[in-house]
């Protein structure tokens, strides 16, 4: 197992390539943000702006990068006679490292984005922790905020990773199981999202939709029952548990799945 973990973390097919992919992807979204910034400035906007979906893009993309990296690792492992057991155990051990790395990169990208926007007079709101960027700007020495932000990103990264695993499992084994697994992932994270602070982006989105659309006005705002609100730390722990539960499902699917690659000859 040490071989495989070593391979996953050291090799250019593993972590290093993942980092390169993440950087590429984040720069890509960075360009998109830049274009948005230019558009907003031309528009003459100033003050608070909500870009909730864009804020999460880094996390979704980290899931995609992870799926790509993990897929390569699995294939290479199988080609070199590594047992499924070892691959699964190795990935489980390596995943948190990948998650932490991508969380750090995403958080860094987000902070940079927030700062750049701030320089132009626009304050970004996103992910529910509405005043974070405010705190960030005014109290940058406050490490707690940074950890807070990091944990939040880590949490969603695990979500993206779990989805990535389900995608790989589906791709390898059968489309039906993949779809079931993906739906399951979404469902599990939906449950968690119910517990996010009421200004969480999902509800933010829904609320804005409610405000904007005629018939929805009568339904009213979506607010999670107060008793279900957890702190970010608790949420992170729950996420980790959820992640490993889904990983367990992934392992069960992959344990006996034929991994052959596409026939060319």
């Amino acid at each position: 197992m040490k071989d495989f973990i070593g391979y996953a973390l050291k090799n250019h097919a593993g972590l290093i390539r993942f980092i390169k992919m993440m950087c590429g992807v984040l720069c890509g979204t960075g360009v998109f943000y830049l274009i948005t910034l230019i558009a907003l400035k031309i528009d003459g906007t100033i003050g608070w702006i909500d870009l909730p979906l864009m804020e999460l893009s880094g996390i979704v993309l980290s899931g995609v990068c992870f799926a790509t990296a993990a897929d390569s690792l699995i294939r290479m492992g199988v080609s070199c006679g590594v047992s499924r057991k070892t691959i699964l155990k190795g990935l489980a051990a390596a995943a948190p490292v990948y998650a932490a790395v991508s969380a750090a990169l995403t958080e860094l990208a987000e902070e940079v984005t927030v700062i750049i926007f701030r320089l132009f007079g626009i304050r970004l709101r996103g992910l529910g922790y509405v005043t974070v960027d405010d705190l960030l700007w005014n109290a940058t020495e406050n490490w707690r905020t940074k950890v807070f932000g990091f944990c939040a990103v880590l949490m969603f990264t695990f979500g993206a990773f779990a989805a990535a695993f389900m995608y790989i499992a589906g791709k390898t084994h059968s489309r039906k199981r993949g779809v079931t697994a993906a739906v399951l992932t979404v469902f599990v994270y939906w449950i968690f999202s119910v517990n996010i602070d009421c200004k969480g982006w999902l509800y933010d989105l829904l609320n804005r939709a409610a405000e904007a659309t005629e018939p929805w006005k009568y339904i009213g705002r979506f607010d999670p029952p107060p008793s279900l609100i957890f702190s970010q730390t608790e949420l992170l722990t729950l996420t980790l548990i959820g992640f490993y539960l889904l990983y367990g499902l992934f392992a069960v699917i992959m344990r006996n799945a034929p991994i052959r690659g596409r026939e060319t000859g």
Partner: protein
Amino acid sequence: MSIELKTLTKSYNKKLALDRVSLTIEKGTICGLLGRNGAGKTTLVNLVGNRDFPTFGEVLLDGVNVRENDKALRKIYCMGADDLIPTNMKIKEVISSMGYFYKSSDAKYAEKLCGEFKLEMGKKLSQLSTGYRTIAKVIFAMSSGADYIFLDEPTLGLDANHRELLYRLILERFEETEAAFVISTHLIDECAGLFERCFILREGTLIADEDSETLRSSAFVVDGKTEAVLLYTSGMEVISRSELGTLSSACVKGKPGNVPAGLEISKPSLQQLLIAMTADEQRG
């Protein structure tokens, strides 16, 4: 020191890809794994390499089941026609990756082989032609340092010069390392000299497991007028028959007895014998 397949069976959707195949591969031999497309050769190699799992039966290396067994699997390398190795990887990356898993993998030897074939190590697999991709995969297999190397169609897309080079390199490596080579190929006449032993699969069943020379001399071909051939071969085990107008040719198991005038006897090449043994219509 050997790999033993014990009643290895694999079924997909109620169809038997491999049916109770039992055979032994000794270390230090070069064997041919022959059969038509879809006969089960690739399935067999996949089962040995832990890429897929048997429905029934087992693959044993020195008595130990290789299924999910890292230690045993590291002594085996399976090269296939598929794209299992990520095609966006560069050749030198794959070779260094292999070093993590195959402790005796020989990167220098891989470099030497790349030089012989004029293969640039900085290229990605996806950038190579079919022939060169095969060459790359064979190089990975041969430099792995594994004790048992399975090459599934190592000649796919290779020009004649490269094939000659490949055979020479296999023999060279074979003498150096005493590894076992199991080669599936459709270019049987070219490779016949390499094989010490041949395994023939037909629709998932093992129909021959013998040393090459015995196999070759196990049958003869009789040509002549159809009635004469039928008369002569009555009571004999005819492997396959073909007709050309009023003439017939039959491939028969065993040795020719007293041959009446008007009939010609000849010995089939390994390829001809294989074609006869794996022909679609079998009349006995």
